[in-house]
């Protein structure tokens, strides 16, 4: 006979009720600061739980660059965490210069997609 796990499997999210779309009310939005590429400089607050960046109409953030795939990279908020996933783009996603398939993101991270460079701000002033 096997015993069950002596610990909880369900992650507990503190303050569940005050979380809207994965972000606590009143909290500042994580923001992509575009520092290079077509349209720079500009800022994209990551308001939705999922934000797709690409050159196509299906992307939430559209950037006119031939080096981007239609749906290039997905940014996803999960509670206080922010992650990215390469959506099988042709030219890849580079996190601080390293080609990444997926990653947890932190303040000051540099994300390059094609000729577009973002700097991530977790909670900008």
């Amino acid at each position, binding site marked *: *006979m*096997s*015993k*069950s*796990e*002596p*610990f909880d*499997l369900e*992650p507990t999210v503190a303050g569940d009720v005050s979380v809207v779309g994965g972000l606590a009310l009143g909290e500042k939005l994580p923001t992509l600061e575009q520092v290079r590429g077509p349209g720079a400089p500009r800022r994209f607050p990551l308001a939705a739980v999922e934000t797709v960046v690409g050159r196509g109409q299906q992307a939430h953030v559209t950037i006119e660059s031939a080096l981007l795939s239609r749906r290039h990279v997905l940014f996803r908020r999960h509670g206080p965490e922010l*992650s990215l996933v*390469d959506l099988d783009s042709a030219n890849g996603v580079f*996190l*601080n*210069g*390293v*080609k*990444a*398939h*997926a*990653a*947890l993101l*932190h303040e000051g991270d540099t994300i390059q997609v094609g000729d577009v460079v973002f700097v991530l701000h977790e909670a900008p002033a």
Partner: protein
Amino acid sequence: MSAPIFVRFWGTRGSIPTPGHKTRRYGGNTSCVEIHSAESELVCDGGTGLRELGLELLQRKQPPRSMHLFFSHMHWDHIQGFPFFVPAYAPENELTVYDPGSGRVEELLQGQMRSDYFPVNFNDLGAKIRTRHFDAQATRVDDFEVRCFEQAHPGRSFGYAFELGGKKIVYATDSELDRLLVNRDETERDPEKLRRLPSELVAFVAGADLLIADGQYTDAEYPKKVGWGHARASTVADLAHQGGVKQCALFHHDPLHSDELVDQKIAAARARLAAHGSSTLVFGAREGLELKF
């Protein structure tokens, strides 16, 4: 193009977990790296990062039923996540644990689950757990070909090379590379000089798409840590360069190192590689980072 290999860092810290704001970026969980393809689920070491890997596997659309665990050695920071690895509790799962050294891997995993230490006994785990002996010969593990090699660490440790479809990933943590140098006198006179590692070790990492290697210390720290069983980042960089490694992830970060200190360690390793005229890219292994090959 062959099926891709995914490599994900679940724990990158050496020696002991280091939660807290100083280590957020590189992470505080101890050694655990997942290597998986469409067919295989391989796990290198069972440090505290293994707990979160187990939870994530449950969330997958098709959780793997068969998993392979490769332990570099059985020091705490490489096994402590195992009792919290949820898939080990499910009767439908099968875990294969590889034992390249002592023949005591299963006994030692059991030991840390004795009732004095932990409420569930190893023998009460639901999954089928079997130990597979491992030697220097290449061994087939699902679609991977795996080799192991012995390293320089108190009480022994082993590195592993995983190959699939012409791609090669090497996991080599807890090894004091400076004890293996073949030109030690020369490099003591001139620390900038390329530190030469034994040809068998260089062959082991040769041509790797990714070398994950213990690079715990800075050059300033290492003289006080000789004999502790860990490498300085600069010597790891030299090994990676000699092996023509494409990318090298510095791993097993020192528990005293803040994110900023790890950044400095990486910057120094990059400067050293640039001075060698190397094309190897070195970076810091960080929790949550997944690479695709």
